[in-house]
């Protein structure tokens, strides 16, 4: 929705939600929408574990945001 408004955006979801995320993208008319996936779970992680997860995916986030 942000991208429809002209704002570059990236969606992150944990690997547990890849199927619903793709289904939702289909419903909204964006089949093949690219997600950055991170390992599940998130809610119970410590700040240090969150930081480590972010380090793993930050390059993917930048790549999608700057994709022409």
């Amino acid at each position, binding site marked *: 929705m942000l991208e429809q408004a002209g704002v570059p955006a990236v969606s992150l979801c944990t690997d547990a*939600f890849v*199927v*619903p995320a793709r*289904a*939702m993208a289909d*419903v909204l008319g964006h089949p093949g929408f690219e997600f950055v996936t991170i390992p599940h779970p998130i809610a119970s992680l410590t*700040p240090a574990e969150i930081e480590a997860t972010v380090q793993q995916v930050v390059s993917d986030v930048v790549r999608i945001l700057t994709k022409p």
Partner: protein
Amino acid sequence: MSAAPDLPVVDAEEIRGLLEDYYARGWTDGLPVMPVTESVLAGFLAQTSRDPDEVLLDMPHLDRACTVRLAAINAAMAGCRPEYFPVVVAAWSALKAEGYVPRAIWQSTTGTASILLVNGPIRERIGLNSRSNVFGSGFRANATIGRAIRLTAINAFGLRPGELDQGTQGNPAKYSACIAENEEESPWPPFHVEHGFEPQASTVTAMTMRSVAHIEARHTQVPEQLALDIAGTVARTGALIHETISACIALGPEHAALFSRAGWGKDDVRRFVYEHAVNSRAALAAVGKDAVSGKTRWRLSSAHAESVPDSTADHDAVKVLNSERAVEIIVAGAHNAGVSAVIETFGPRGGPPAIAPIESS
């Protein structure tokens, strides 16, 4: 050998083939559904004054809506008789008023289902069970009205498990959950009358349900003991995702009579449960739920970086209900044992329940 029973002559292979086709199209909840034709559909639509294209409930985030026609098709597939359909239509009105369904609660990992409560004379007219096995199986009206809602969720909104329905475990009410109040064996006014409807009106109330937790209390005639047993069940820490919870207490007729004999009305039960459904601060700390998130208001440990004190931080006895109105009381089940249940209803409530009148034919 006895004579062959008088059964209709049908081609079972043809019927089974049709049912298999419904399965193959993904149109079922795992159980067989009843075939629907235009003429069957017309029989259902004739039971309501609503326009077939009228939207009963929409989910804007999915750009999908349930019309009267879609509700009727799924009610017929669920095995409803046409005369049940006004209950189904009212159920959709109640679900819309309840508010969680349009906001995607059926898709949540939480795994809630909607439970319907029916009051008034329609119960007798269509054979809705309010007594033995009220949460169980065996009654077509209960089974198929509840199932009509679930099949619509699957077929009109596309909420299939693991796809747009992300329920971590779900719960058994996702097949069907429709009960009737045992008004005849209640010492108090029926639920819909308590909330301003005439006794001769029939209504559907919709609630979002997590679990049904039973209370075994066959041993006592002391109202305070029974009410504490109920309050302890309401207060379980596992139910606390938000700061507070809500509950509908389904008293068995024996328990309702016990309270009534002691001079307790519904409001007395409600007030007692509100005051005694508590956890100590230490008990909450022991499970890491002694504070709330400053962002989501979900419970977490006071040691968490995001934590802020909950709204009763200065109390050691932490109430799990935000008001007396967060607990509803109904009477349901058989008058045969000291058994009641807490229907854990989702969300920190306190407002009036979502009750919709059933159109009379």
